[in-house]
C-alpha cells in the first residue's frame, strides 16, 4: 500500500517562502496568482495491511513526527 501525505501550513500561519515565490511568479508575469502556500509531500510504502489499520497508523505517524500540529495540518491518500 502507498500513502501519499500532504503536510501544509495551517491557515493564518505566515509563510514567507510562499510569499517570496508568489512575488517571483508575479515578476515573471503570472498575474493570475493571488496566493502561494508551500508545503511538503511525503510518500510512504506500507506493507500489506487493512485500509482501516493503514489509516490509523499513518494518522499516528503524522501526529507524532511528520507534521508539527502547532503550525501544520496534514491529509493523505492511500492507494
Amino acid at each position, binding site marked *: 500500500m502507498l500513502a501519499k501525505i500532504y503536510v501544509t501550513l495551517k491557515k493564518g500561519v505566515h509563510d*514567507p*517562502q510562499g510569499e517570496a515565490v508568489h512575488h517571483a511568479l508575479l515578476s515573471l508575469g503570472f498575474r493570475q496568482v493571488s496566493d502561494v502556500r508551500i508545503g511538503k509531500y511525503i510518500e510512504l510504502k506500507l506493507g500489506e495491511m487493512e485500509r482501516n489499520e493503514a489509516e490509523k497508523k499513518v494518522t499516528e505517524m503524522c501526529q507524532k513526527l*511528520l507534521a508539527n500540529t502547532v503550525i501544520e495540518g496534514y491529509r493523505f491518500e492511500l492507494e
Partner: protein
Amino acid sequence: MKFGIVVFPGSNCDADCHHVVTHVLGCEAVALWHKETSLQGCDCVILPGGYSHADYLRCGAMAAFSPIMTAVKGHAAAGGLVFGICNGFQILTEAGLLPGVLMRNTSIRHICRDVTLRVNSNQTRFTRLFRAGEVLTMPIAHNEGNYFVERRQLVKLEEQGQILLRYCAPDGELTEDANPNGSLVAIAGIVNEQGNVCGMMPHPERCSEAIFGNRDGKKMFESML
C-alpha cells in the same frame, strides 16, 4: 555541578559548550551521545546548537526522538535543569518540553550576527544574575528562529513570566526593526512552567570570555550554578 552535553549527529556547538562549562565555569562536563540512555548523574543537561540530523523534515524533529531524550524528559520531570541553545531550543519544542515552534525566519535568510536582547524576566534559574530590563548582546546564527505559539499559550507565557529574553534595540526598546527573525512578540528565549527547562536562540556560549569582547553569556551559565 555536573553538566551533560548531548551530542546529536550534526551538533556543532557541543565543544564550545564543553569548553565554557569546564574552562570558564570550572565545572565538570560530560558529552552524552544521543544514543545513550543515561545522563550519568548530570545536574544540568545542555542541548547544544547545530544541525541535528541535517535539519531534515523540520529542525529538531528527529532528534526529539533520540534515545537520550527519554532520559532528558525524565530529568526535566524530576525538576532537573535542561538548557537548549539554538537547535537545542528547536529540539525542546519538538519534544514537547517547551511550548511553541521555531519557524523559518521571515527574511528567509540565515542570520548570523550580534543582536541585543532585553531580560524580560530575571526570576528564573537561567537569568537570576541579570537585572530585569537589562540589555545584553549575544550572537545569533539560525535559519529557523521565528518563534510561534498559539494565542492562548502566549498569554500564559506572558502571565507566568516565562518569556526570558526578547530581541530589542540597543537602548532596550522593542521595535520591529530590532526583531531579526519575525518571532512573536520578539521572543528570543523562554522557560517552561516549572522554570527548569529553558530554550533560547542566541548563543551564550559564544560570548562568555573576554577574548570575544563580550561576556554577557557567562552570566547565563553562572545563573544556573
